[in-house]
C-alpha cells in the first residue's frame, strides 16, 4: 500500500465532489458564474416560446434587397422590443427570410400576431393617392410642449420621403392627408403649410399616452415589405416544462443504468469510469455554460448520447486492458500498453464521428444545431477525460497496491 497515491485519490474524489456540488447548487450567490447550470439557457421547446420564419415579398413600393431586408429586420426588432422579451433572437436567413425566436413568453400566439401584423403604413391624399409608405418614415416621437401643454407627434422622413412629402404638402395645403395603417385611418391631419424639411408635427391628442401609442404604431407600422409566415412553431410554457421534467427524469434513469452496467461488468475500472463520467459531466456543463449553449430537447438527447460515447472510450481501453492482462503482463505495463493501443482506435473513430457532427451543425438549424453542438462538445470532452483522467486514476489505483487482476475484470 502506497499512501501517497491513496492520498491523491482521496483528494481527487473530494475535489470532484465539491466541484460537482458547486456546479449545480447556488452556494456562493456572489460568484457570477456559479452554479454552472445558470449559464445554460433553455431552448424554446423546454421553456415555451415561439419560432417564426417570415418570408418577404416584393410590393409595389419596395423590392426585396439588402436595404429593405435590414429595414424589415429593424422594424421587427422594434416591435419585439415593444413587448419586452428577454434575449429575443431576430436574424436574417438567406436573401428574403427573417427568423424570430422568443423564449419564455406566456402567450406565444399573441406574440406572433404582434410580429406578423402586416401593418402597412401609407400616407394618402384626399383623392386616395398614396404619396409615401412606411418605408420612407425614419422616426416618430411623441412630446409635450412644456409651455402650452400641447401634446404632439413628430414625424421624421428619410431623404426620399422628405422630397415626396414636401411636394405632396405643397400641393395639398388646407386639405387632409390621411395616415393609414393596414387600410384603416390612423390619423387624418390637415396640412397647414408646405413642409419642406421632412419634419411633420401632428397635434390634437388628449394625452401623452395616446400620442405614444400613435408614435409606436407609426414606427412599428413601417414595414417596407410584405411578409408571410412560412414556418411557425409555438410551444406553450406548460408543455415546455413537462418536456424538461420528463427528459431530465429519463436522463437520470439512463445514467443510473449505465453506472450499474459499468460497475457490474468492469468492476474496479468500471467504478473509475463512472467517476470519470462524473468529471466528464462537469466539464461539459462548464463548456455549455461558457459558450452559452442553448439546450433544447434534442440537445439533451445528444448530451445523453454523448455519455454513451464517453463510456465507449473507457470500454475500448478496459477491453484492451483485459486482453493485455490475460497475456500475462504486469498491471502497470498492461495499463500503459492498453492505453497506447486503444488511443489510436479512440482517436480515429471519434474523428470520423466528429465529421458527421460538423456536417450536421453546418446544415442544421435551430434545435438540430443545438443537437450537433451538444454531441460535438461531448465527443471532444469524452476523448479528453478518457485519455487523461481515466488513465491517471487507473495508475494511482494500481499504485495503491490493489493488484488482484480479477478486480480489473481479467
Amino acid at each position, binding site marked *: 500500500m502506497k499512501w501517497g497515491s491513496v492520498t491523491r485519490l482521496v483528494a481527487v474524489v473530494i475535489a470532484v465532489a465539491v466541484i460537482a456540488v458547486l456546479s449545480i447548487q447556488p452556494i456562493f450567490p456572489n460568484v457570477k458564474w456559479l452554479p454552472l447550470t445558470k449559464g445554460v439557457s433553455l431552448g424554446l421547446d423546454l421553456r415555451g416560446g415561439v419560432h417564426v420564419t417570415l418570408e418577404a415579398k416584393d410590393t409595389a413600393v419596395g423590392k426585396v434587397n439588402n436595404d429593405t431586408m435590414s429595414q424589415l429586420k429593424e422594424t421587427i426588432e422594434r416591435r419585439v422590443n415593444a413587448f419586452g422579451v428577454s434575449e429575443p433572437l431576430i436574424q436574417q436567413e438567406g436573401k428574403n427570410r427573417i427568423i424570430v425566436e422568443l423564449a419564455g413568453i406566456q402567450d406565444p400566439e399573441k406574440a406572433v400576431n404582434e410580429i406578423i401584423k402586416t401593418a402597412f403604413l401609407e400616407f394618402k391624399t384626399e383623392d386616395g393617392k398614396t404619396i409615401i409608405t412606411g418605408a420612407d418614415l425614419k422616426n416618430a416621437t411623441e412630446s409635450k410642449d412644456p409651455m402650452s401643454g400641447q401634446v404632439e407627434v413628430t414625424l421624421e422622413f428619410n431623404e426620399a420621403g422628405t422630397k415626396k412629402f414636401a411636394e405632396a404638402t405643397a400641393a395639398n395645403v388646407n386639405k387632409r392627408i390621411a395616415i393609414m395603417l393596414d387600410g384603416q385611418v390612423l390619423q387624418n391631419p390637415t396640412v397647414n403649410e408646405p413642409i419642406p424639411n421632412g419634419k411633420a408635427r401632428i397635434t390634437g391628442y388628449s394625452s401623452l399616452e395616446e400620442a405614444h401609442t400613435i408614435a409606436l404604431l407609426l414606427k412599428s407600422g413601417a414595414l417596407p415589405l410584405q411578409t408571410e409566415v412560412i414556418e411557425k412553431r409555438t410551444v406553450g410554457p406548460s*408543455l415546455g416544462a413537462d418536456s424538461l421534467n420528463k427528459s431530465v427524469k429519463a436522463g437520470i434513469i439512463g445514467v443510473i443504468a449505465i453506472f450499474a452496467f459499468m460497475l457490474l*461488468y468492469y468492476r474496479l475500472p468500471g467504478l473509475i469510469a463512472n467517476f470519470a463520467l462524473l468529471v466528464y459531466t462537469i466539464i461539459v456543463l462548464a463548456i455549455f455554460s461558457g459558450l452559452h449553449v442553448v439546450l433544447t430537447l*434534442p440537445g439533451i438527447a445528444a448530451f445523453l448520447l454523448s455519455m454513451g460515447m464517453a463510456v465507449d472510450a473507457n470500454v475500448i481501453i478496459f477491453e484492451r486492458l483485459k486482453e493485455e492482462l490475460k497475456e500475462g503482463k504486469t498491471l502497470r505495463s498492461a495499463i500503459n500498453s492498453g492505453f497506447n493501443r486503444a488511443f489510436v482506435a479512440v482517436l480515429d473513430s471519434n474523428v470520423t464521428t466528429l465529421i458527421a457532427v460538423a456536417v450536421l451543425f453546418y446544415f442544421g438549424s435551430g434545435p438540430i444545431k443545438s443537437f450537433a453542438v451538444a454531441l460535438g462538445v461531448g465527443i471532444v470532452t469524452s476523448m479528453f477525460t478518457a485519455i487523461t483522467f481515466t488513465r491517471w486514476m487507473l495508475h494511482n489505483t494500481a499504485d495503491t497496491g490493489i493488484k488482484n487482476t480479477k478486480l480489473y475484470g481479467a
Partner: protein
Amino acid sequence: MFHIIKTRKIFYMISLAIIILGLGSLLTRGLNLGIDFTGGNIVELKFKNAVTVQDVRGSLEAYKLEDSQLQSGGDNTFLIRTRVLSQTESEQAIQGISEKLGGATLLRNELVGPVIGKELTRQAILALVIASVLMSLYITWRFEFLQAIAAIGGLLHDVLIMTGIASLLQIQIDSTFVAAVLTIVGYSINDTIVIFDRIRENLRMNRKEDLGELVNKSLWQTMARSINTVLTVVFVLLALLFFGGNTISNFVTLLLIGIVCGAYSSIFISGPGWYDLRRIQKDRKRAGKAAA
C-alpha cells in the same frame, strides 16, 4: 463462437431481405411524412373536460377542417393536423373549439409552409453526401481506400434500413429524422473504425495470416466492445423512450433502430464487406499478372 467470415453470406442475405422489404414498403406505402415535409398545421390542445375524438372532429366542422388528422395523446390532449392555416384561421378555429368543448389550453401550434419541406429534403441529401465524402477521405488517409468503401457501404446499408423500417412501421418523419440519420451515421462509422483499427493492427503484427481468419479474429476481439457500447447507448435511449415524453419519442425510436442496425452493419457488413473487396482486388491482380 461462429466464424463470421465463413457465414458472412447469411448476414448479407438477412440485410438484403430487410432492405428489400423496406424498399417494397417505401414503394407501396411510402413514408409517413410530417408537416415539416408536407406543409401544414399541427395544433396540440389540452382540454379541461374529458372529450372524445368525435367531439373534437365535430367541432372542427364549423371551420371545414373535419378532414384533419386527429390523434389523442392521453390525459385529454389532442393533436390536430390540418392543412396550412393562416394565423387568423388557426386562431379562430382554436378559440372556437376551446369554447365549444369547455375550455382548452394551447400546448403547441406549429405551421410549416410547403417550401420548407423541399429545402429540407435537398439539404438532408446534400448533408449525407458531404459527410460520406469527408469520412471516406479521412478513412482513406488513415486506413485505405477499400476500407473507406466498405465503411460507406455499411452506412448506406444503415440509412436504407432506417428509412425502410420507418416506412414499415409508419413512423412519422420530421426534420429531426435528418439529425437521427446523421447521428446514426456517426455512431455506425465509429463502430466500424474501431473494428478496422484492430484489423490494421493485426495486419501489422502478422502479415502471413490468412485474411479471412484475420478479419474473423479482429471482429471477435472487438465484439465485447461493440456490444457493450451499443448497450450503454441503448440504456439511455430506452429511458428516453419510456420516460422522455411524446415530443421526442419518434426521434428516439429512430435512433434506437439505427444504433442497433449500425452496430450490426459494422460487424457483419462492413468488416466482411472489406474482406470481399480485398479478395476481388487480389483476384483481379492475379488475373492481370497471369494474362501478362
